[in-house]
């Protein structure tokens, strides 16, 4: 199932399909290992459209809700 990172539920895994953003955003996310093809696990979304925390590689990264809405993920359903 394809969803944005902000729509994904906590504790779901998936792999990034694409990132809609300018070169600046792609570079910033890319330096942290957030690139298309990467496997990620969502940890949480803070309340009131707050930052989304994910696990990528062996790092936890928190990113703003807006940024998370630009990241399209192929979500693995039913797999933990």
């Amino acid at each position, binding site marked *: 199932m394809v969803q944005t990172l902000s729509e994904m539920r*906590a504790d779901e895994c998936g792999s990034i399909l694409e990132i809609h953003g300018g070169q*600046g955003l*792609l*570079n*910033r*996310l*890319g*330096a*942290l*290992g957030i*690139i298309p093809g990467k496997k990620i696990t969502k*940890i*949480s*979304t*803070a*309340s*009131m*459209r*707050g*930052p989304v*925390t994910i696990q*990528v*590689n*062996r*790092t*936890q*990264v*928190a*990113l*703003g*809700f*807006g*940024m998370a809405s630009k990241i399209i993920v192929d979500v693995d359903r039913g797999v933990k």
Partner: protein
Amino acid sequence: MKILLMGNPNVGKSVLFSRLSGVRVLSSNYPGTTVGYTRGFTKVNNEPAEVIDVPGTYTLEPTCEAEEIALKMLKTGDVVISVIDATNLERNLYLTLQLLEKDIPVIVALNLWDDTRHRGINIDLDKLQSILGVPVIPTSALTGYGIKNLVKNIPKASAPHAPTRSLDERWALIGNITGQVQQITHRHHRWYERLEDASVKPRFGYIIAALVLSASFFIIRFIGEGLIGYLFDPLFNNLWTPVLMKLSNFMGGGGFLHDVIVGKLISGQIHFVESFGLLSSGLYVPLAMVLPYIVSFYLILGLLEDIGYLPRLAVLLDTTMHRLGLHGYAIIPTLLGLGCNVPAVLATRVLESKRERFIAATLVCIAIPCVSAQAMIFGLVGKYGVQYVAIVYATLFIVWLVLGTILNRTMKGLSPELLIEIPPYRLPPWRTVFQKLEMRIRGFLVEAVPIILAAVLVINVLFVMGVFDYIANFAAPVITGILGLPKESVTAIIIGFLRKDAALGMLALSPMTAKQMVIGSIVLTMFFPCIATFVVLLKELGLKDFLKSAGIMISSAIIVGGILNILL
């Protein structure tokens, strides 16, 4: 030879730097502790070499001021020690690959090596070394493991002149490398990993934050008050008072020199706040009123920093901070500001935009009282009752919210979104916690005590010369008219430019009602930063923005003081 220590934020560069150079620098468990660079010296092959602790960066395409500093430093170095967090090889290799594309010899320090084993990570060092084409040395800066080996191998650093790659090519290569050299054994989540996840989840996160913050507050007060009541007050009252009284008798109990050195006697007695002599208030204010809180505040802050809690607080408070034109990470300079505004203003360098840095620095200078000011507020305003201390804090908090909202609405631009790495929780060894505390206490004693003594001296001299009367009459319309303070308190406001603690002590000299004390404390906090903060703020913002910031400080102090004068 100039050696640069470079790497991602929070991989232990500063600890490694201390090991190499013997120079002690502050380190914590969150990205962005080092925002400027520190230099020190070490020996390589018995030749002296300069070592530079460069701020952490994820990429050589800078995204904030601290990263820009890192890039500038790269051009000046002779050799780079690329510091890698061995428990996080993938992400850390990205910067290393970028460095290998540059024209500078590189050696890799695989730091946090001792952590890999119990995290189930196995790295084939020889293979990694042959793929990268530069020496790879496992180290553990915290314990000192591998440091000698690292230094011995610095001359072997080499520049493989790797071809310039694109972002995708680098990540493809990293996938390839880690596939060959790294084996990860799966293991179950530990309890602290569950706690890590819980502290950024909506419901649990806020409960944990409320517990952590209120516990911190009560522990800080408990230790601070304990030190004052059971250690410093008895020391001063029982040991120091008799000495001063002897000295006072010897000097004839009065006169200019007596009043400067011992202070004015109040009904024949030394009063440690009101006497205002060099050896009475000049020592009592910094040592018995402020120092206890410096100890307790920095002990707790140091623990929160080293455990790695602060970035999680940034995630939880992000939505609130956006209303003030900031993002969640601005909570770190704000919390540092509760200790001292100087490192707080410097720490705004982790924020991405100029607008954000301006708002964050201005808000810190206006609404965040440093620990020196807070200790005096507790000591002096607290005498009238706890509710008055609460009014001071509530007012400053409202000012922080309202002023931030106004700045956010009126300044052009948007607040950028949060993008931060959340470090794992680590239990800091007590030795490092106390070393850091000792550094901060020493900093206070060396920097603050001389300024307080100078302030006391200057006040005494100007007092005798009648300078204050002249200024007091001049400033009376604002001071008494708008703020409702006795006109003598203008001296306190002037001294506030030097240091807030001395100024608050001054404020207590003239007879004040509870209301006047509350307004006086708030105005003193907001009005202008102390001289040390002033210098840093000017340097960080530039003259134009500094003047703008100062204008906001002065006008908001007068407006808020005026409103309180009507309301209370």
